[in-house]
């Protein structure tokens, strides 16, 4: 038996916030010093989610392609900046390379799903496109930042090995290939782990949300499978894209490793 979503009111939220208070009391008792951070994080969750809820309601109501594109652009820039900031090292031009990667990968995979699988009409329908690209960006930026972090670490700390290969006539690709593939592998780990345990250890968020909203579990599962495949493709392409962009920036056309362009935060 299924029923539609049960709407929540302020009282429901107040009761739920009691759970965070319990977590706070536990932290206080253990002296973890995390209470202020927990309070700020909880407040941010409320403010950010309410804000995004109102923005989405407004954008849905506008029914305007330019407004949806503006939302997309904002999301892509924030995701790119966040991905680069999570890495321990960076280089000049990393942010726009991350944004470009996320734009190509995010739009490519999201539009494939909305236009070819779910067959949304119009293709930019914000009710589908924005949540889907939000999921894609959230997952891809994790893979992308892990990939970027690993590659910059290798190009800094294993520079002597890479130069040893270059000194023996390796091309920049031959010298950098191991670091690039290792970084892509690192970037793929979260989504591979998520796919491996999906439905066994945890129910994925989107599927849970659909079931709570009254969807038949089997319909929710079909959506979730599509989403998992989309996220796997996005993570792989995102990690690969940023690794190749970074490799191209840090090895020049004279087949030299330019590790001096890397800076630690």
């Amino acid at each position, binding site marked *: 038996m299924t029923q539609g979503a049960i709407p929540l009111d302020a009282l429901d939220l107040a009761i739920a916030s009691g759970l965070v208070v319990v977590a706070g009391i536990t932290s206080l008792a253990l002296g973890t010093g995390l209470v202020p951070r927990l309070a700020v994080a909880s407040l941010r969750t409320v403010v950010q989610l309410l804000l995004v809820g109102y923005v989405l309601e407004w954008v849905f109501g506008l029914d305007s392609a330019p407004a949806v594109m503006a939302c997309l652009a904002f999301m892509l820039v924030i995701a790119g900046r966040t991905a680069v900031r999570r890495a321990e090292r960076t280089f000049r031009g990393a942010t726009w390379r991350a944004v470009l990667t996320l734009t190509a990968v995010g739009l490519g995979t999201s539009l494939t799903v909305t236009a070819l699988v779910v067959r949304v009409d119009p293709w930019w329908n914000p009710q589908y496109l924005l949540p889907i690209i939000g999921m894609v960006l959230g997952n891809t930026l994790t893979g992308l930042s892990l990939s970027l972090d690993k590659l910059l670490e290798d190009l800094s700390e294993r520079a*002597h090995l890479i130069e*040893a*290969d270059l*000194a*023996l*006539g*390796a*091309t920049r690709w*031959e010298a950098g290939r191991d670091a690039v593939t290792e970084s892509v592998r690192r970037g793929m780990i979260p989504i591979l782990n998520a796919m491996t345990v999906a439905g066994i250890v945890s129910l994925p968020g989107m599927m849970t949300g659909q079931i709570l909203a009254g969807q038949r579990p089997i319909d929710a599962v079909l959506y979730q499978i599509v989403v998992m495949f989309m996220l796997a493709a996005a993570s792989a392409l995102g990690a690969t894209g940023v690794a190749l962009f970074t490799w191209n920036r840090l090895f020049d056309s004279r087949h*030299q490793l330019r590790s001096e362009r890397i800076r630690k935060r």
Partner: protein
Amino acid sequence: MSDARPSPPSRPPQSGLSARGLALAAGGRTLLSGLDLHVAPGERVALLGPSGVGKTTLLRTLATLVDPAAGALTLDGQPPGALGHPAWRRRVVMVAQVPAFHDLTVAAALARPFAFRAATAPFPEARARDLLAQTGLDPAAVFTQRARTLSVGQQQRVALVRALLVAPDLLLLDEPTSGLDAATTARVESLLAETPALSQLIVTHDPAQAARVATRVVDLAPYASPAPGPPSPEAP
């Protein structure tokens, strides 16, 4: 003068490695400037100079691993861009003072350069074993050992063998015997002396070694830029 001797008349004037008006910088500081250097085919040149003068940076520059701050390089009259940098580095091979090896056996480490696109021949395993023996290493024992587990002196010899297998025109050797005892140093010097067609540019701190292994010595001190810091009280 580093290169007062004219090139042999039997060779074209630009044969060998030439560096003209070279200036080197590292970490925003100029190390050397105004350096003209020519290494003719088969010539063995020792580079001397105080610590920090830029000897290693000079070798890295000649191997085109870093760019000079000023000046130009040619090999047989051709700049690195015309030959292609990987092809240049197959002909001008640098052996670092502290060699770097991937986590591979000695055999795999020696074979690695032959998997690169610039390789023109398969890995000559028999010659590799022969060269290892000539440097005093037991090929049967070290071939299957992880290169990183060897001592620094053993790694230096494996790195030298790896460079010789590539069959370059010019070897750039950075303190090649710094981790070796006197007997093994003599073996290595003898091996280098037995390959007369191979040009060599050898960085050493030891003037006696320079005299033994080189046909010419270049002192880098006259090209050194003054080190930064407060002026010495003895300075005029």
